[in-house]
């Protein structure tokens, strides 16, 4: 069946993520021909760019046909999608260029060097952030944990999709990472053999230090907890949307709750403040203590 998806303006408030997930629901499992209509879209934030790119690949992976109706694109939106490489990826020959956008990125498989370059140079390495190399390395290592989790636990055939942006007036960096695979709650329920475990409990478990659904006898579960602590120190914000669950973590609170609409995969939205003074790294007072 044919479907036209009407893409509205998408910001990054909670209701905007709802809008994105409703688009995924509209597609369902059986759409063979999907047209993206942007007549009512005047602005897209990177969460939308990453999600729409992933949605297109999701449809294509199910033998569906996708069309971006370029005639419906507002000039400002079109320029942004050209700048960040989205149009070049899907429907245009015009190559992206450098601006305030961080490129739209697809990783069908884990590509460490490419991802490190993306995070360190394309997201963090521009002049818009006054940041030393050591701090940049710390952030890359922490944010990498998001991708590592997506690749190991997401069980997705089409990979991971990202887009970011710098907001100079807010002095913030944002990055969205999304996969259309198995969500966190399903993984946790299966691992614990508790099919009726409430979604908020499943998410809370996933974010505890030391918990992991990894099989095979090697410990895991350090990365997300470490990222969580890092975001708090930075006074940033970390949000996870997975299935009917939502996580929000900032310096003041951690929220784990059930929330509709349902989205099968996992979307991560991270916001960091561009103030080096906020990156206070704890010094190791116990350097002489035995490690093991």
């Amino acid at each position, binding site marked *: 069946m044919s479907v036209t998806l009407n893409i509205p303006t998408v910001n990054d408030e909670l209701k905007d993520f709802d809008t994105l997930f409703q688009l995924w629901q509209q597609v369902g499992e059986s759409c063979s021909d999907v047209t993206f209509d942007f007549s009512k879209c005047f602005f897209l934030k990177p969460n939308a760019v990453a999600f729409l790119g992933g949605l297109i690949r999701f449809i294509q992976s199910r033998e569906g046909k996708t069309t971006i109706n370029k005639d419906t694109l507002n000039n400002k939106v079109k320029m942004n999608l050209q700048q960040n490489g989205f149009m070049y990826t899907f429907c245009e020959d015009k190559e992206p260029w450098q601006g305030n956008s961080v490129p739209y990125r697809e990783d069908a498989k884990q590509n460490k060097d490419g991802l490190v370059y993306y995070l360190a140079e394309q997201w963090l390495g521009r002049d818009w952030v006054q940041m030393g190399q050591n701090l940049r390395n710390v952030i890359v290592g922490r944010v990498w944990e998001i991708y*590592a989790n997506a690749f190991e636990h997401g069980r997705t055939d089409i990979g991971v999709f990202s887009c970011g942006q710098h907001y100079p007036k807010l002095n913030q960096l944002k990055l969205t990472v999304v996969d259309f695979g198995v969500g966190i709650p399903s993984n946790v329920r299966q691992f614990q053999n508790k099919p009726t475990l409430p979604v908020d409990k499943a998410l809370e478990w996933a974010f505890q230090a030391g918990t992991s659904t990894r099989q095979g006898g*090697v*410990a895991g579960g*350090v990365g997300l907890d470490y990222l969580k602590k890092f975001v708090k120190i930075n006074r940033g914000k970390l949000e996870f949307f997975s299935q009917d669950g939502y996580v929000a973590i900032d310096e003041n609170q951690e929220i784990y709750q059930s929330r509709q609409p349902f989205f099968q995969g996992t979307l991560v939205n991270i916001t960091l403040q561009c103030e080096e003074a906020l990156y206070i*790294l704890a010094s190791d007072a116990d350097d002489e203590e035995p490690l*093991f």
Partner: protein
Amino acid sequence: MRHDIHDLIGKTCMTPDEGQKVYNLTYPELLANRPVELDFAGVEIFASPFFNFAIGQLLRDIPPDTLNRLLKFSNLNSVGRQVLKRVIENSKQYYSNENTRKAVDEVVSEQANSL
């Protein structure tokens, strides 16, 4: 035996495969009671999956005291050390829980056999 991690892996130590590579070199030496030094000079970026596989799984069957005596880390920057510490702490708990599970399983199995 000293292993130059930058030469072996590169300036970023992040993935499970990279960690497994280090483990495969380190583990047999430690089992043979031979000292090992892992030199991280030139390594700039760390992530927990690497340390989980490189170091964490050593705790599966090598006691902490032995690892403290035989395994040395040099030129590991403060961030790498922090991540490593978290991984070690987590792995000790993980394998302790695993040993507990195994012990319980053995008791249950013995009881079943005695019925």
